[in-house]
């Protein structure tokens, strides 16, 4: 079982490398967009699934990243520098927002981030001299490294894939570090975690800020992918969409956000033949999923697997006795 895991992981990466070969531009573009949303959903998963805080501003952090990257690269600064600024800015804004919100009750971060997302949208739309208003910004160059350009869609896909693998690795490392294990302790039993000396507020604040920084990175990739950004791409509805990705996939599972992003981005494409009805079908499916499996798709899968997989079980007739 343990031997199987690295093998599966390699297989997955190989599949991601092979996926765009021989595909049309549109499919490559959709795949790249899936990778980008996986990154941002991974960040939200840290906030939500591991630290247990609802953030409704993940799209706003993407917006911060995207606008900073767009403005810097349009002025001739290299993407490599722009992405660092984007990540740092999202992290800093996350700290500033989270610090006061986390002083009070647990659901207040949701309210503050909701307000922040809407405010940011208004600022992006109204400050036309800087952000281009509702016409947005157009023509961001795609980065090139050591003479290799990522101008073609397929090259940019591989570039996004590298960023995706690096950030997934970083997330894996964060969660495996003693510091990341503290998140899980917080989620499972906050009172015990606090009694063992964990600073609950500091931990959740950092989790939120790091989650936001992942959003900033995703935004920095979004700008050169689409090469057109406008305020409504980062409106509240998109934050809700990212939240949907995390919960549909399975919050608190490492691969939940990737699965969720795939469902949220690819399902509408698959349902396209239903034309106007696709959002209706889609939202109904989400409601049904939530009613029957609140832990998302991965949770539902685990439940199914447990039903079929033979499990090691101490004598069943002793069950009552064991419980007592």
């Amino acid at each position, binding site marked *: 079982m343990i031997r199987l895991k690295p093998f599966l992981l390699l297989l997955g990466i190989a599949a991601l490398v092979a996926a765009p070969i021989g595909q049309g531009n549109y499919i490559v573009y959709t795949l790249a967009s899936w990778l980008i949303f996986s990154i941002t959903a991974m960040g939200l998963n840290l906030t*939500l699934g591991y630290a247990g805080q*609802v953030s409704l501003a993940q799209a706003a952090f993407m917006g911060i990243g995207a606008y900073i990257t767009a403005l810097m690269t349009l002025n001739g600064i290299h993407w490599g520098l722009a992405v660092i600024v984007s990540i740092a800015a999202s992290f800093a804004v996350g700290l500033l927002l989270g610090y*006061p*919100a986390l*002083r*009070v*009750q*647990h*659901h*207040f971060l*949701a*309210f*503050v981030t*909701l*307000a*922040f997302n*809407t*405010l940011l949208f*208004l600022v992006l739309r*109204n400050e036309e001299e800087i952000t281009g208003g509702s016409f947005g910004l157009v023509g961001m160059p795609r980065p090139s490294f050591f003479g290799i350009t990522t101008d073609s869609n397929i090259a940019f896909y591989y570039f996004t894939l590298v960023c995706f693998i690096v950030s997934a690795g970083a997330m894996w490392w964060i969660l495996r570090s003693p510091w990341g294990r503290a998140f899980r302790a917080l989620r499972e039993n*906050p*009172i015990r975690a*606090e009694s063992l000396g964990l600073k*609950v507020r500091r931990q959740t604040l950092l989790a939120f800020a790091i989650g936001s920084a992942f959003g900033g990175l995703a935004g920095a990739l979004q700008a050169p992918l689409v090469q057109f950004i406008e305020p409504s791409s980062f409106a*509240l509805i998109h934050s*809700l969409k990212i*939240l*949907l990705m995390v*919960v*549909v996939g399975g*919050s608190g599972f490492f691969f939940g956000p990737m699965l969720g992003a795939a469902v949220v981005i690819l399902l509408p494409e698959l349902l396209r033949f239903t034309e*106007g*009805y696709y*959002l*209706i079908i*889609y*939202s*109904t499916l*989400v*409601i049904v999923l*939530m*009613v*029957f499996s*609140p832990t998302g798709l991965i949770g539902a899968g685990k439940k199914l697997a447990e039903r079929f997989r033979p499990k090691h079980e101490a004598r069943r007739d002793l069950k009552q006795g064991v419980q007592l």
Partner: protein
Amino acid sequence: MAEFIQIIVSGLAAGSIYALAAVGFTLLWQASQTINFAQGEFVMLPAFFVLVGMTVFGLPLWPSVALALALSLLILGVAFKRLIVEPMLPHGTLPLVIATISLGLLMKESVKEFYGATAQPFPAIFPQTVYEIAGASVSMQDIGNLVVSMLAIGSLQLFLNRTRTGRCMQASAQNPAVAEILGVNVKRMVLYTFLINAGLATVASVLISPIYLAKFSNGETLGLVAFIAAIVGGFNQIRGALVGGLLIGVIDNLSAVYISAQYRSAMPLLLLIAIILLRPQGLLGTSEGRTV
């Protein structure tokens, strides 16, 4: 001065309708810890029930309103509670938040697909006369809206405080376990709360649609405003939601005229952030115990 009075009156009139939505929002939160992200759509939908009654079945206005009320109680009250909220309650707030977000989307898209994407004119409930009071022109519609919503909230308050059922509802909201032990049918009380919310949404819908026209996307702004009003006023108080709604209505109108039309919708949000920082329990709220 005349302009100022005019702004205040129309702000209060709009605010009283927001308050209706905010009160329903607060009630759901108290009774079942449901943060209803579809609240705006709950206010959007009944207007279309009325329009269906008038155009499809050819009914006059008031029978259509009665039909809309019945449908709302059935769909937004009973079905919402039985099919969506009840199965999810044991799993905490988050799946329910996602489900209500999807429900809002479902309602919005269904109206767009099955009724129409354009704004539909909605018959006025009150005569369109305008009075001159101290130089300010005040419309009958504003006064009517204000009076009807105040009456609705006032009678709700009386019902909750003065009747046996109302007190049982309060008890089940404050401590369901003890209420159950004392013989209150908690499930039934929660159902009443959902019915009241559906009723308030219908009233709000019928009042607001003549002003903004009935459109599938109306819920987006309405939901956000109701949400802000509920938090600003105090999440666990009906009075709070009332004050919050009125305040948001007035601030919204004042800032549109005196500050900037572009940043009009930013003012309630800034108010929200200020309230959360300075007085997290809301203007009239009492602080809840910390969850940890």
